[in-house]
C-alpha cells in the first residue's frame, strides 16, 4: 500500500460513522452543568439553613455566663466551661501526639523503608484503619491508655501503680465556717480512702486516726451490761442530775445521787430528740427499784430521766449551754481498769483535779475482747483558764485505738487493746471550739505535671484515644504529601552528598508541609467533633472544674451538647445550639491556626 492510499484510507475512516448532532452535545453539556450547579447549591443551602437555625436558636444563650459556668441541672445556670476547656486540652494533646507520630511514620514509609511486601502490608493496614469506626478506638483507648491492660503491678485507674507530682495532705476544717485549720503533708497515701464526713485527728502531728462524724439522734443510754450511762446529744440539751429535781445544787451542772423518790421510767434506754420527750415515750414500764438516775432537759425544756443501776460506775455528761456534738458509740467499761482503779472511770463532778481536767486524764486500756470505747467529759463553768479535754473521738475502723483529745495542747492518749502496741502521745487539737468536732479529710494535691500509670480516664488518655482515631488519616495524608514532592528534588539533594535525613529535613519535608497541614486540619476537625470514643472511654459528664494536669478528668463539648440535646425542654435545646456555636468557633480557631502555620511555611518556600 502506497503512502497516498494509506492517506485515503485514513481520511475514509476519520469520516466513518454517523455524525453526532452538535446541538445535542451542547445540550447534554448544558444539562450536566446545571445538574452539577444545583447539586452544589443543595449542599450550600443545607449548610446555610443549618447554620442559620443554630445561630438563631443559640445566639441568645451566648453570654459570658454560658462560657464561665459549669454544667448544671438548671438550664439557666448551665455553661460550657468544663467542656470547652476539656475539648481544647484534648485537641492539643491529640494534635501534639498525632502529628509527630503520623508524619514520622509517613517519612519512614515513603523515604526510608524499602518497597517490599512488609511495608506494603503496613500501608494497606493503615488505609484499613482509617475506615474503622471511631467507637472501636474508644474501646482500644480504654484498654490501652486508661487501664493499660490491667497489667500486674501497674495498678488501677483509682490507685495507680506509679504517680509523679502528687502530694497527700491531711486537711482539717473547723466545724462552723468550714475554715481550713491546718494542712499537713502526709507520708503515704491513705490505706483506707476517707469518706465524706469523716474527721481526722493528729497525734504528735504524725499519726492520724480517722474519726467518724455521724449525726445520731440525741440519746441517753444506760447500758445495763456495762454499767455506763451515756448522753448523746447532737442538739443542745440540758442535763441535770440529782436525787430529785429539787435537790439540784447548781442548776445546769452535773451531779449524781441516789434517787430518793424513784419515778417510773424505762430501765434501759431513753431516746431524746427535740420532738420526742422521755415522758411521752418511756415512762410506761417502770423498774421496781432504782437508786440512781439521771435527769436531763433538752433544749425544748423536756425532761430526761435515765436510771443508773445500783453499784455501777457511770459517766455523766452534758451541761447547760454546751453543744455536744461528738459522736459517741455505746460505752463499755474497761473491766480490768475499773477493778484495779475504778476512779479512773467513775467520774464524779466535784472531785475536780483528778478526772475532769484533761491533764489528769490518764490512759487506760480495755481488757478483753470488747472494743475500745470513748469517754466524754466536759469543762465545768468557771474553769476556763485550764485547757481541758472536752471530748473524745474514736474511730470504729481503728477499734484498737483509743484517742482522747481536748482543747489545745492537752494530753492525748492513744491506747491500744494490744498491750504490745500500747502507746501514748501528746497531740494537738485543731478545733477552735473544742466542743465542735473536727472535720477533716485526706486530700491529694496534684501539680501541673502530675503523671500516673495507668493514665486513667484523664485528658491524656482521651487525647491519645482521639489520636488513634485520626492517626491513620494523618499518615495517609502525609504519605501522599511526601509522594507529591518531585523525585528530582530528592535526587538533586542526594547527588550533592546529602544524607537521607538531610534530604528529608531540608528538602522533602518543607516541600510537603503545606499538604501535610491540610490533611492534618481535616483530621483535627474530625477529632474535635468526635464524641463516641470519649463516651466509650467513660468520662464523667458533670465536671465543675477545668483540667489542671494531663491526668485530670475532663468532659468535651460534643458530649455536653449530646447530653443537652437529649433532654426534654426548649431551654436545653437552646443550650445545645449555643454549645454547637461554641464548638464551631473552637473548630474554626484550630483550623485558622493551622492555616496560618501553613501560610507561614509556604511563604518561606515560595
Amino acid at each position, binding site marked *: 500500500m502506497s503512502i497516498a492510499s494509506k492517506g485515503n484510507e485514513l481520511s475514509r475512516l476519520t469520516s466513518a460513522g454517523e455524525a453526532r448532532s452538535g446541538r445535542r452535545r451542547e445540550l447534554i453539556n448544558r444539562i450536566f452543568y446545571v445538574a452539577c450547579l444545583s447539586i452544589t447549591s443543595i449542599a450550600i443551602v443545607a449548610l446555610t439553613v443549618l447554620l442559620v437555625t443554630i445561630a438563631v436558636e443559640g445566639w441568645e444563650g451566648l453570654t459570658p455566663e454560658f462560657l464561665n459556668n459549669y454544667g448544671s441541672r438548671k438550664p439557666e445556670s448551665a455553661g460550657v466551661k468544663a467542656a470547652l476547656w476539656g475539648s481544647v486540652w484534648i485537641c492539643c494533646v491529640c494534635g501534639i501526639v498525632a502529628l509527630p507520630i503520623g508524619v514520622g511514620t509517613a517519612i519512614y514509609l515513603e523515604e526510608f523503608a524499602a518497597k517490599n511486601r512488609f511495608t506494603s502490608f503496613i500501608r494497606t493496614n493503615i488505609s484499613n484503619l482509617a475506615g474503622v469506626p471511631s467507637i472501636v478506638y474508644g474501646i482500644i483507648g480504654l484498654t490501652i491508655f486508661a487501664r493499660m491492660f490491667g497489667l500486674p503491678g501497674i495498678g488501677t485507674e483509682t490507685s495507680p501503680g506509679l504517680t509523679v507530682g502528687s502530694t497527700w495532705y491531711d486537711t482539717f476544717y473547723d466545724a462552723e465556717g468550714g475554715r481550713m485549720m491546718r494542712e499537713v503533708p502526709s507520708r503515704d497515701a491513705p490505706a483506707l480512702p476517707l469518706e465524706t464526713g469523716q474527721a481526722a485527728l493528729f497525734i504528735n502531728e504524725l499519726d492520724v486516726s480517722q474519726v467518724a462524724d455521724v449525726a445520731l439522734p440525741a440519746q441517753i443510754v444506760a447500758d445495763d451490761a456495762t454499767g455506763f450511762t451515756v448522753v448523746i446529744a447532737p442538739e443542745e440539751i440540758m442535763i441535770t442530775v440529782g436525787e430529785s429535781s429539787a435537790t439540784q445544787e447548781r442548776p445546769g451542772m452535773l451531779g449524781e445521787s441516789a434517787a430518793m423518790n424513784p419515778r417510773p421510767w424505762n430501765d434501759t434506754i431513753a431516746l431524746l430528740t427535740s420532738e420526742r420527750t422521755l415522758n411521752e415515750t418511756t415512762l410506761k414500764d417502770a423498774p421496781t427499784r432504782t437508786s440512781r438516775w439521771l435527769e436531763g432537759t433538752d433544749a425544748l425544756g423536756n425532761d430526761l430521766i435515765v436510771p443508773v443501776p445500783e453499784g455501777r460506775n457511770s459517766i455523766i455528761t452534758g451541761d447547760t449551754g454546751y453543744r455536744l456534738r461528738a459522736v459517741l458509740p455505746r460505752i463499755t467499761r474497761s473491766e480490768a481498769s475499773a477493778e484495779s482503779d475504778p476512779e479512773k472511770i467513775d467520774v464524779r463532778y466535784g472531785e475536780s483535779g483528778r478526772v475532769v481536767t484533761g491533764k489528769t486524764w490518764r490512759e487506760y486500756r480495755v481488757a478483753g475482747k470488747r472494743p475500745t470505747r470513748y469517754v466524754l467529759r466536759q469543762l465545768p463553768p468557771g474553769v476556763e483558764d485550764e485547757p481541758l479535754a472536752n471530748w473524745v473521738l474514736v474511730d470504729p475502723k481503728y477499734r484498737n485505738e483509743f484517742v482522747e483529745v481536748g482543747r489545745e495542747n492537752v494530753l492525748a492518749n492513744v491506747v491500744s487493746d494490744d498491750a504490745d502496741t500500747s502507746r501514748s502521745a501528746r497531740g494537738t487539737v485543731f478545733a477552735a471550739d473544742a466542743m465542735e468536732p473536727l472535720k477533716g479529710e485526706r486530700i491529694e494535691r496534684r501539680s501541673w505535671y502530675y503523671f500516673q500509670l495507668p493514665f486513667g480516664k484523664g485528658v491524656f488518655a482521651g487525647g491519645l484515644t482521639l489520636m488513634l482515631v485520626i492517626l491513620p488519616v494523618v499518615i495517609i495524608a502525609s504519605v501522599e504529601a511526601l509522594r507529591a514532592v518531585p523525585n528530582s*528534588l530528592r535526587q538533586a539533594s*542526594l*547527588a*550533592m*552528598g546529602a544524607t537521607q535525613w*538531610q534530604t528529608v529535613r531540608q528538602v522533602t519535608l518543607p516541600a510537603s508541609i503545606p499538604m501535610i497541614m491540610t490533611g492534618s486540619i481535616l483530621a483535627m476537625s474530625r477529632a474535635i467533633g468526635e464524641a463516641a470514643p470519649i463516651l466509650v472511654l467513660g468520662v464523667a459528664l458533670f465536671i465543675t472544674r477545668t483540667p489542671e494536669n494531663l491526668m485530670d478528668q475532663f468532659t468535651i463539648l460534643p458530649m455536653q451538647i449530646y447530653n443537652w440535646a437529649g433532654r426534654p425542654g426548649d431551654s436545653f435545646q437552646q443550650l445545645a445550639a449555643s454549645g454547637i456555636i461554641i464548638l464551631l468557633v473552637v473548630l474554626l480557631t484550630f483550623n485558622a491556626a493551622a492555616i496560618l502555620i501553613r501560610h507561614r511555611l509556604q511563604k518561606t*518556600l*515560595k
Partner: protein
Amino acid sequence: MMHEPETQSQPLERDLHEEDNLKVDVMSIADRAPETEDTMSNTPAAAAPPKTMISTRDFSSWYGKFKALHELNLDIPERMVTALIGPSGCGKSTFLRWINRMNDTIAGARSSGGMTLGGEDITDTRCDVVDLRRRVGMVFQRPNPFPKSIFENIAYGAKLHRKYTRGDLEQLVEHSLRQAAIWDEVKDRLKDSALGLSGGQQQRLCIARAIAVGPEVLLMDEPCSALDPRSSAAIEELIRGLREQYTIVVVTHNMQQAARISDITAFFYEGHLVETDETEKLFTRPSEKQTDDYISGRFG
C-alpha cells in the same frame, strides 16, 4: 583530600570582582585540594599526557536481570570534558550514575568490575557515598532547583558538609554564581525563589549549586536537552570554561554539542563501549563502522 584551613580566608580578602581570581577562590572556599605544581602542568594546554581521573575495568551493571552495561573499560582524563554519546537506552546515563553511585537509590541496581576515582575504588560498599557525592557533583537533565531562594539553593549543598559563617557563605554563593556565569542576572534577587528563573538560568543555577560543594568531577546528564538553543549555548560556553578546573563527564544526544564542547568522546551502543577517542578524531576518522554509522546519521 587535603584540608587547608589557613588558606581559606586569604583568597576571600582579594578583590572579588577580579575574574581571574575567582576560579581559585571558589575552590579554596569549598576547601578543595589546593593546586600543586604537578596538577597545574596537566591542563589540556600542556603537552604532557592527561592524568586519568576515573577508570573502569570490566565494569558491568544490571537492573535486576537486565544487563545494562557490558564489561566497560574506559579511562576519563582529569580536567577535560568527556562526552558520552549513543542512542537512547545504550547505558550512557547508567554509567554516569555509577560514578556518583546515584544508582544506589534504584532497587535492583548492581554492578561488577572495578571503577576508581583518583585511584580509589568507588564500587566498594565501604566507600563513603556521602563523601563520594561531595567530590562528584551532578547536573540533571531537567533543571531541578529547590523551592527555596536562589541564595539558599547555592548554600544548601555547602552547608550539608561544612559549617560556614554568614560572611563566608555569602562570598561562596557569589563566587559560585559568578563561576556559573549567572551572577549578573541574579545578584539583585538572591532572596527570590529559584523557581522564578528561566530554564537556562535554572540549569546554570544547578551547575553553580554543584560547584559550590567543591567537587573534583562534574557529571552532566544531558544538561541542555530541556533548554532552548540560546540557553544551550550559554551552558556549553560554561562547560568549556569549567573544564580547566573540573573533570567533566557529559551525556548528550546532540553530536554537534559533543563535538563542540568535549575533548574526549565515548560512543556507547546497547550497553557496550564501542569506541572512545579524542573528539576530533572520533568525529572525523572513527575506527569502528558502528560509530561511523551513528555520527553520520545512518541510525540512531
